[in-house]
């Protein structure tokens, strides 16, 4: 059986620089992996490559053994439905309430009202967002936005979860809360997780293998 995700010799060259070079790793089903690196190491870019928001200059990305290099936007849209993504640069939709933002991936899949309500109630409760369910995103502090992004990424119960610096900029208590919630969720559901961290301390918050980016 092939790995859930295989990355081989991945490189990304922008007009300014070679931002990523020779990145290789494998993610098995149910495994957690931390991409650790300092500012500018390309960890967020790597996540964007993995979810098809950017295209690599070199190398291969294989999901379930299938090379996605030739995928168009439609094929990526289908593939993204198999993953939950919480990216720093892909925030909440500002004119939708918190509940609507979290429920959106299910609405986009045409999920029925009953299943949608149940999943939404669970997510709001699990990530402790219920009191803010009717709030608009600009009113929310950054800790709540991070929890909301996680709730949105997990509401479809995807087999693969990609999270960009989920603990950054949070005070200790909020950081530990999110780390616990994320660990419990991933373990309980047997999901595969890739997340990024800036430091060893952040990387240690969720038990995982570590890939260090230069």
């Amino acid at each position, binding site marked *: 059986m092939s790995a859930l995700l295989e990355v081989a010799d991945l490189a990304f060259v922008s007009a300014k620089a070679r931002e990523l070079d020779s990145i290789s790793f494998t993610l098995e089903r149910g495994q957690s992996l931390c991409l650790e690196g300092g500012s500018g190491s390309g960890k967020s870019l790597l996540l964007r490559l993995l*979810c098809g*928001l*950017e*295209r690599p200059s070199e190398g291969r990305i294989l999901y379930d053994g299938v090379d996605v290099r030739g995928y168009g*936007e439609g094929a*990526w*849209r289908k593939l*993204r*439905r198999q993953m939950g*993504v919480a*990216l*720093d*640069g*892909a*925030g*909440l*939709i*500002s004119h*939708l309430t918190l509940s*609507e933002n979290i429920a*959106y*991936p299910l*609405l*986009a*899949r*045409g999920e029925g009202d009953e299943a949608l309500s149940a999943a939404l109630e669970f997510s709001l409760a699990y990530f402790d967002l219920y009191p803010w369910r009717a709030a608009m995103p600009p009113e929310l502090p950054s800790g709540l936005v991070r929890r909301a992004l996680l709730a*949105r990424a997990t509401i479809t119960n995807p087999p693969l979860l990609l999270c960009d610096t989920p603990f950054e900029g949070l005070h200790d208590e909020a950081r530990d809360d999110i780390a616990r919630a994320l660990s419990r969720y991933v373990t309980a559901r047997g999901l595969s997780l890739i997340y990024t961290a800036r430091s060893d301390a952040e990387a240690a918050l969720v038990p995982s293998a570590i890939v260090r980016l230069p």
Partner: protein
Amino acid sequence: MALTPRYLNWSSGLRHAGVALWLGGAAIAGLPGLLFAHRLTRRRVVEALFDVAARPLSLLTVLAASLGAAVAFSVGLALGVIDVDALLLGALRHILTRDIAPLLVGIFVAGRSGVALAVRLRRMAMAGEMDALRLMGESPARYVLSPALLGFFAAAAGLYLWGLFIAHFSAALVLDARHVVAIARYRDLVAAAAATDIYYGLVRALVFGLLAFLVAAYEGSRAGGSSEVVEDSAGKTFVYALILIFAAEAVFAGLNA
């Protein structure tokens, strides 16, 4: 790049028109999907219709009334003195219905709704909302552009008909007040041949609305973002749309001639 796929390099000069057409095509392709869209997209459609077509109504009414009156004064003074009210009304009908009302709507839609759309698209891209839509399995073009296009078409048609009515009404009041032509006579002569003129005027208004939309979608989807860029993009949207609208008006006038 906000709406066109990020990995496509659309930056070189000759591709500008291609990008605008790609965006227009994506918006049109998304229109049928709106019929079966989920409730948040349907709400987006209603908001777009309200923003683009309903909100400007009061301002457009004032503008149309002023223009109708101004044209009536000018044409009435020029032709009223020789007592040829049929000629006078024919000229008024033609000028207001085929030229002035569609142009007024085109300028209005470009200046108000076009600029608003371009700024909104840029802001959404800067806030990562386009990427967020992609990640949620939504097509940004269908969620953002198709409702906006529907709004532009509705605005172009609705505001044209309303503006036309107001402009003629205002012109009739002016001519009646100045004892050039009675309101009843005005109504009869304008109504007699209104359908063809309205058809031409409506087509022009829709084309102008589409041009305003394409420019706004193109400017809004260009890469890069800062508050200065957004302001610059708003100005460019209006100017480019005006250039295209007046060029199209010249083509229409030539075809009519």
